[in-house]
């Protein structure tokens, strides 16, 4: 087990090095950089620009820049944001925290809905609840995230029930603890709703398909023959037997916690990583882009690692297969 974890962590480290190299390469291939844009500002002299280039190492060749950035990263320094004039790590921390607040709640809701509904739908295959769920998930799947988010925003504006964008009301700091929590919760409803509506149909269909696969299996019928109650059969036996593809999907859900909400965050003005990265890309704020991509990759790799470890723990066949390696 320890060897397996070490090997997987080694693979993950190599993958991160590869991703950081590629991100560095691609951002340097893009025409112009942030400091080039500053040339247009008549208040910034040529001398200042040269000094800034030397300070941030932008005048160095790519390999030197990469090594400098990578060694800084080992000390926890992710570089400096030209646009914000602040260290990237501290900027990313706040934005990532906001994104995680949104996506974690949305993921818990999406799985909380997809699991029971998917199981219910599979159990009633071809019955009216199943047909209704299949139709509803199909309809949601063909609506793009952007349209979904805009539709919800329109609903918020027309009804006035929820704030149309942002994370908190102006002056929220002066409110009491309870009022502040209520304000945050109200601001969360729309983006969480949009994320749940966009991710839940995919999850639900996977749950349904996985459960359908095992419900017809001979060992589940045998368990029924032993007199197992329906709920226990579905949630303890069928779900456990159908777990492998769902655990992998859960890993992907974890992995996309930072990167899966970009469009929704932009449309709903949620101050998360999405709009922050988009601004950084448009402004060619080099280290913010690289830092953001790397952080998303860390989550993706960690999500997959968690899924693999869960599979290893849950399935004796995988343990037997990988046990000695």
């Amino acid at each position, binding site marked *: 087990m320890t060897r397996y974890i070490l090997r997987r962590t080694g693979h993950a480290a190599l993958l991160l090095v590869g991703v950081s190299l590629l991100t560095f390469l691609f951002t340097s291939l893009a025409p112009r950089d942030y400091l080039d844009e500053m040339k247009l500002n008549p208040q910034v002299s040529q001398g200042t620009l040269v000094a800034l280039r030397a300070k941030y190492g932008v005048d160095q060749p790519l390999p030197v820049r990469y090594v400098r950035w990578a060694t800084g990263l080992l000390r926890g320094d992710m570089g400096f944001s030209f646009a914000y004039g602040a260290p990237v790590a501290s900027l990313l921390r706040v934005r990532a925290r906001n994104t995680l607040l949104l996506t974690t709640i949305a993921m818990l809701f999406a799985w909380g809905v997809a699991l029971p509904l998917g199981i219910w739908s599979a159990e009633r295959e071809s019955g009216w609840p199943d047909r209704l769920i299949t139709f509803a998930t199909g309809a949601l799947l063909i609506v793009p995230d952007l349209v979904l988010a805009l539709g919800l925003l329109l609903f918020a504006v027309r009804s006035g029930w929820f704030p149309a964008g942002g994370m908190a009301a102006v002056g929220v700091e002066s409110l009491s603890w309870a009022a502040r929590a209520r304000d945050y919760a109200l601001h969360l409803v729309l983006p969480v709703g949009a994320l749940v509506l966009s991710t839940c149909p995919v999850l639900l269909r996977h749950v349904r398909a996985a459960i359908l696969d095992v419900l017809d*299996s*001979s*060992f589940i*019928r*045998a*368990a*029924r*023959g*032993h*007199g*197992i*109650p*329906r709920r*226990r059969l579905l949630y303890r*036996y069928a779900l*456990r*037997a159908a777990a492998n593809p769902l655990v992998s999907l859960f890993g992907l859900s974890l992995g996309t916690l930072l990167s899966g909400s970009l469009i929704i965050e932009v449309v709903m003005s949620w101050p998360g990583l999405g709009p922050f990265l988009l601004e950084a890309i448009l402004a060619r704020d080099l280290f913010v882009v690289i830092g953001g991509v790397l952080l998303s990759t860390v989550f993706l790799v960690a999500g997959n690692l968690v899924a693999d470890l869960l599979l290893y723990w*849950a*399935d*004796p*066949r995988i343990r*037997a297969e990988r046990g000695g390696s």
Partner: protein
Amino acid sequence: MSSAPGTMPALLTVESLEMRYRPRNPGPSGSAVTALDGVLFAVAAGTTLALVGASGSGKSTLAQCLACLERPTAGTIQLDGLELTALSERKLRAVRPQIQLVSQDPYASLNPRLTALEIVIEPLEVQRRFSGAERAERARGLFERVGLSFRLAPRPVGEFSGGQRQRLAIARALALEPRLLILDEALSALDASVQAQIANLLLDLQQTSGLTYVFITHDLAMVARVADDVAVLERGRIVERGPVNQMMRRPAHAATLALFAATPRFVGPLGLQAGE
């Protein structure tokens, strides 16, 4: 094989059993398929009824109905006078331990995530019988009864051979001390020597525990070895029935003759020749 089945009271009585269902991918007519059509038979306690028939004759559907895993469209199934088809799912749960099914595929019928011990004690857990230590002790006894070493108990079921798996499936079925065991082609996926071992095991268990078997197969040599009575199923109907000796010597219906004709000709240790 026990003697004189006609003198014993019927444990299982099946009357006018019908099973119709709509296929998942119906053809242009969209009509329902009749899998069982007026099936009627009884099995005396402690005896073996062999149900034989060609593929698609309704054998496995009948097995599923007898094990109460499918609800028949019409007709009744009675176990010792108790009408099973009239019971709600909740009431049926209490009766299920008395009827156990051993299915054809020893690979698909055991949960691949479990160990051999977990497989055997699973029915006891489901029925909340005995404490943890008692369950393990019962499992040890069951392993012995089906001729498996208890040292294999902690191993995952994936490490077992087909014959060992079928022994495990039988041990699992016996865990709840059933009165009726339905063996749906339970030996057909095994090689000849393992088939003979399991058949002997079933006969021993019948002698020691007085079990009643419904033995579903298309293997006539095995029928001659284990059954007291034979019923021939064709297109969901029982077309011929009788004691095994009579059926083996003087089969009358065309479907029975076709089954004999389809059996490879050989003269076995029992002196039986297919088609004789």
